[in-house]
């Protein structure tokens, strides 16, 4: 391990320089970051200055009920990306998957980082927390809940990464066997930045960290805790297939003429219209493409409960339940009730006819 204290006193600029990152590529990174965060170009020097002088912040990364896909998303992105730059420049003091230490040594590292940086560290969480039985997910014998609550106490800010940590995600899908909840469900007294996605876009994760480093504040969030700069517009709003949607030109199958011509994927189940994320603009794999560009409808992975939307290939206008069955059962029942009601009405009518006294000639002559 490198000397921790030396590292801590280095600024981010020092670190980048010692890694041979030129001023030019650093400024390029700042420009890219500023544009990603929708900041005007005039802000680039400010971003550069702030980042250069930022002390390497301590980051504690907790992984609960998750698949490690979020970490994969971040670390498997192309080597020369800005997200790697920034992640080389923080002090990642605890991360199950990435740290060398394990068991008690790992926990000791976490506790040391918490103590040393109390009130200043950034807590990143991926994965949901099981509330039914703490035994469903433990780390070094500590339940996820205890570890989260304990670590959150001294955090300056919490970044919930991935749909599991932000909204419960896959573990929270019906019938939610572990009683999974999100970070925001448990922690109410700290700022939480939600960075949903299954997994989230790497540059969005780093963008949030960069924002925090640059301004020392959390970015502006929407009503479900997502940074507005990245989650302010829906996929549908920025989708390049949108003109086809507006005209009503849809691919019916994955290989028909419409699919080949790049028509809208709404009929194939696209959740783009109700999904807020930056995929259509930042794209994936170093800006190569995003799912819709690759011909697959958006599955809405950055929205709460995206697993319970009735199926990825069911169009948004279709019901999520089996309405045919509901209608048939109801019709059968209603037919029976209708016949019974009809019989009752008839009986009533007949009784009324019978009860009606017949008037005879004699009656009239009286």
């Amino acid at each position: 391990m490198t000397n921790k204290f030396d590292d801590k006193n280095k600024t981010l600029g020092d670190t980048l320089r010692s890694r041979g990152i030129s001023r030019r590529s650093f400024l390029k990174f700042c420009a890219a970051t500023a544009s990603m965060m929708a900041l005007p170009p005039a802000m680039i020097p400010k971003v550069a200055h702030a980042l250069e002088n930022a002390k390497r912040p301590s980051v504690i990364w907790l992984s609960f009920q998750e698949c490690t896909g979020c970490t994969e998303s971040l670390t498997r992105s192309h080597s020369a990306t800005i997200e790697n730059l920034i992640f080389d420049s923080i002090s990642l003091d605890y991360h199950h998957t990435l740290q060398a230490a394990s068991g008690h040594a790992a926990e000791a590292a976490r506790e040391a980082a918490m103590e040393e940086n109390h009130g200043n560290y950034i807590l990143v969480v991926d994965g949901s927390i099981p509330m039914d039985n703490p035994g469903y997910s433990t780390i070094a014998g500590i339940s996820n809940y205890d570890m989260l609550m304990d670590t959150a106490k001294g955090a300056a800010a919490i970044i919930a990464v991935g749909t599991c940590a932000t909204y419960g995600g896959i573990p929270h899908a019906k019938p939610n066997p572990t009683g999974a909840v999100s970070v925001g469900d448990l922690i109410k007294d700290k700022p939480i930045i939600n960075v949903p996605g299954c997994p989230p876009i790497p540059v969005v994760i780093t963008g949030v960290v960069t924002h925090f480093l640059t301004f020392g504040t959390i970015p502006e969030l929407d009503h479900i805790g997502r940074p507005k700069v990245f989650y302010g517009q829906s996929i549908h709003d920025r989708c390049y297939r949108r003109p086809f949607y507006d005209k009503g030109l849809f691919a019916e199958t994955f290989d028909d003429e419409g699919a080949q011509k790049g028509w809208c994927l709404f009929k194939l189940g696209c959740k783009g219209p109700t999904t807020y994320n930056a995929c259509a603009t930042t794209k994936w794999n170093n800006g190569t493409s995003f799912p819709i560009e690759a011909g697959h409808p958006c599955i809405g992975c950055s929205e709460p409960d995206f697993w319970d939307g009735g199926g990825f290939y069911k169009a948004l206008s279709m019901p999520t339940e089996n309405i045919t069955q509901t209608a048939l059962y109801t019709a059968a029942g209603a037919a029976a009730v209708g016949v019974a009601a009809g019989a009752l009405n008839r009986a009533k009518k007949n009784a009324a006819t019978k009860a009606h006294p017949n008037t005879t000639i004699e009656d009239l002559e009286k």
Partner: protein
Amino acid sequence: MTEIDFLNWVRGPGFQIATIIFVAGVLIRIFEIILLGRKANLAEAKGSEMSSGLRTIVTRSVPQADSFKRSTFTIVTGYIFHIGLFVTIFLYAPHILLIKDIVGISWPALPTPVVDAFAVISIISLLAILIHRFSNKVLHYLTNFEDLLVWFVTIAPLVTGYIAFHRIGFTAPTLLGIHILSVEILMIVFPFTKLMHAFTLFMARWYNGAISGYRGVES
């Protein structure tokens, strides 16, 4: 409850509840009407009931010259919004998908901008109808709560659908959820109000025609 929860609810359990009330309500009412029956007509039949009944279903849909002159506004706006409703409900691609999912059959859709135009025209004519209802003294006098309720539940899906398509104001899941909810309200109100005319209309016309046919007179 997040907005996606809300959307999932209206697409799932909410739609199920609305379907049960709609299907049960409509069927029970139709069964009741049909099973009530009529007294046997002892007079000799002077013509066919069936052909006259069927013919009347069609002929009564065409306004007669003098009644057209008397209520031009009502008939024209009425036709416009009924046609508009038909187009927006049955010829819009996402709606056809919904029908296909439930009934299993589908047909080609109109281009979305055309449907959009029909929606706008329907909304305008429904607004005009309401203004007319209040500006005409007799109509105003005859107006009761049910009329207003029926007007509201009819225009609501058109307006919410238009807003949801153009994504005005709120976020998309909320807008779509509200649109679907407005349709569910329409489905629930349907069997218990004069909206039932969508089904009973043809029965009534057939019956009128059939009576005349039996007597051998023109209907």
